[in-house]
């Protein structure tokens, strides 16, 4: 039985997601009604150039419109800040392209409450079912997984997964600081050194239903390099503070 008193904010960062965004929001609302969840969908429009803005204004959700394009990190943080200030108990990040199944949200909520975790990461690798991503992407994910383990002692298999649930304690941390550009692997370091309990839960991911990944083969090298440097410096910065 789920604790249906928990208020949940579902944060969806959206940049040019006019094809998939409506379905994503509707699916989440259906799950919410079926499972009697007190859930608010918050779509953060990261200054999209297509019709995303007018589409989300007509959907059953809170729409936050960024006046300039901030990238995924800044967009997600906007949603987290909203959830934190409005006093939500949990915030769960869901991609706007339909990769993250709405069906898994009740399971994530159950798992985060049972495991008493502060951050729960939906992982495609624990059960090894569903969409497993491309080979190069998997190499990168494994690399960050090892790097994180080396620095924090926490093993997160799906270190680039954006499907994450945070409780209020974790929201307070990301309200203060959240990384830019490719934030997921770096955020794990942030959680670990703020003494948050990070756990993983198996989720069957889908292939994106529309839109374009922010990571293509051309900038994947830049991605690896930038995130590695960011991880190392976040590590040094946080260690020095203590």
């Amino acid at each position, binding site marked *: 039985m789920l604790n249906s008193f928990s208020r949940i904010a579902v944060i969806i960062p959206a940049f040019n997601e006019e094809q998939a965004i409506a379905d994503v929001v509707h699916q989440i609302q259906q799950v919410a009604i079926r499972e009697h969840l007190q859930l608010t969908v918050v779509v953060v429009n990261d200054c999209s150039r297509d019709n995303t803005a007018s589409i989300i204004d007509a959907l059953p959700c*809170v*729409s*936050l*419109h*960024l*006046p300039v394009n*901030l990238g995924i990190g800044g967009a997600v943080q*906007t949603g987290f*800040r909203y959830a934190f*200030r409005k006093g939500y108990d949990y915030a769960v990040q869901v991609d706007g392209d339909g990769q993250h199944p709405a069906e898994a949200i009740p399971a994530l909520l159950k798992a985060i409450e049972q495991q008493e975790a502060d951050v729960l990461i939906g992982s495609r690798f624990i059960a090894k079912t569903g969409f497993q991503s491309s080979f190069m992407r998997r190499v990168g994910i494994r690399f960050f997984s090892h790097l994180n383990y080396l620095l924090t002692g926490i093993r997160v298999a799906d270190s680039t997964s954006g499907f994450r649930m945070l409780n209020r304690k974790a929201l307070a941390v990301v309200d203060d600081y959240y990384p830019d550009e490719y934030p997921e692997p770096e955020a794990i370091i942030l959680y670990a050194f703020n003494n948050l309990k990070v756990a993983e839960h198996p989720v069957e991911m889908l292939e994106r239903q529309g839109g374009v990944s922010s990571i293509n083969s051309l900038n994947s090298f830049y991605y690896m390099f930038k995130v590695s440097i960011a991880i190392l410096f976040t590590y040094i910065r946080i260690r020095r503070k203590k």
Partner: protein
Amino acid sequence: MERIQIIAIVGSLLFLGFIGRLIIKGKLREEYAIVWIICTAILILFSFWRHGLDLVAYHLGVYSPPNTVFMGAIIAVLVYLLHLSIVVSKLQAQNKTMAQEMALLKNKLEQKQA
């Protein structure tokens, strides 16, 4: 006085005048102008005092005095570029916070009007 000295002095003074104009028009903040004014002042100093360049080069152990000019100029440019990167990083962070606050405020306003 040799021709190159006159060219250097006139060029430096013109540059100084241009910086002054930018400040007056409000297109350049004084704190960023300080670096340029100091650099130009050093240039003017060595334009008048040519022997000074030889002296500095000798004490630094630089074989050819003109190389001291290049070395100094490159170091100054590098330091200033780094300074600009810091300024841009800070601006980016401030800009991000501002954009986020705007999005949240816009939402609050719409809720009030509804």
